[in-house]
């Protein structure tokens, strides 16, 4: 099926099988491998990206469902070579260890701040309930999100 998806500001016309998952579309068709596949069962959040500005788990969205939509992946956050404030906050707060959950964490966290610009620590912990860090580095991740919120 023919779809048009705008990814990180660029429109892509693609012919995909209806069963193609959005995460496979961005990784394998568009080559944007920053979005990771973790559990593949909509539990871990590693594949989180923004669909029309909101975080979703791209392992549980069909590419055809994103037809006509705007997608932002981790590659689309930096502007003009300048890291997004959330990416900077993750770096400055040492909010990653192995880094596998990080793209999904950053996408979920930016979506969270779009909806709640001034979250409490509990808001951040609840807001990231859909993202698992197997290094259990949650403390610094929460600090990074709070720092990013405070810096806006």
């Amino acid at each position, binding site marked *: 099926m023919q779809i048009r998806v705008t990814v990180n500001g660029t429109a892509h016309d693609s012919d995909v099988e*209806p069963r193609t998952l959005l995460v496979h579309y961005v990784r394998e068709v568009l080559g944007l491998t920053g979005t990771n596949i973790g559990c593949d*069962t909509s539990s871990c959040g590693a594949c989180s990206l923004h669909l029309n500005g909101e975080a*979703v*788990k791209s392992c*549980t*969205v069909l590419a*055809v*469902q994103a037809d006509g939509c705007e997608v932002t992946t981790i590659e689309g956050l930096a502007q003009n070579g300048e890291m997004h404030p959330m990416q900077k906050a993750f770096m400055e707060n040492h909010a990653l260890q192995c880094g596998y959950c990080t793209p999904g964490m950053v996408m979920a966290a930016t979506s*969270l701040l779009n909806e709640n610009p001034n979250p409490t620590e509990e808001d951040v912990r609840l807001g990231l309930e*859909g993202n698992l860090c197997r290094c259990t580095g949650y403390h610094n991740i929460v600090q990074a999100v709070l720092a990013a919120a405070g810096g806006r």
Partner: protein
Amino acid sequence: MIPAAFDYVRAGSAEEAISLIGEYGEDAKFIAGGHSLLPLMKLRLAQPTVLVDIGRISDLSYIRDAGDHIAIGAMTRHMDVETSPVLAEHAPLLAHAASHVGDPQVRHRGTIGGSIAHSDSASDLPATTLAMGATYVAQGPGGTREIAAADFFQGFLQTALAPDELLTEIRVPKMGGAGWSFQKFNRRAQDWAIVGVAAWRRNGESGVGLVNMGSTPILATSVSAALSSGASIAEAAELAAAEADPQNDLNASPEYRVHLAKVLVRRALEQASA
């Protein structure tokens, strides 16, 4: 994991969706947000030959004050239920329960209609709307009909919907200041409830719905009957599992689920009565 191959068509209206599902027959399925169906398809537990996408039918996404009840379009997402000022005022139990569905990413995609039509007894909103005495509106080739929530859930993942009927609206009575509580017991934040309880109470009336205590969501009518006859909360909570038939799984034995139901119903009623 990748689903088995299927054809995909997108419906622009409820009428078109019903016409398409009639055209493609029983192996076709409606897909809304897809957060119940796609996981099953990826595991190949469901292999529809055609998906009729109803997720773009914006006419079915709304929350309206309709006098004695709130009318919610079936394509309203959990996030919109959770954050609705209308529901916060008139049906806070439902808004709160919606905030416990999955996680924010899931709530950005999943819909109230999809959750109820899928009718997983472990889901939060079927039992919650059942406790509230909701009415569901189904549209088919011959028009629309209303189905009481108490008549809707007929077995494991089975509902009163005909194969060519589409759930279009959920009507929840206004709570009129009733006390309420939603209790969800699970091991991790985003998990399904091992047992959940949605309850409300106002004067002599009450409603108690149980999550994951049988093959369907359960209405704990014995609890409400006991309360109406003057039983204490502790006495009524002992009857929590009278209508239930809980299953055994990795998380809990039936006996443990019955214990949990009694504890959670007691807590819910105490909170709803405070």
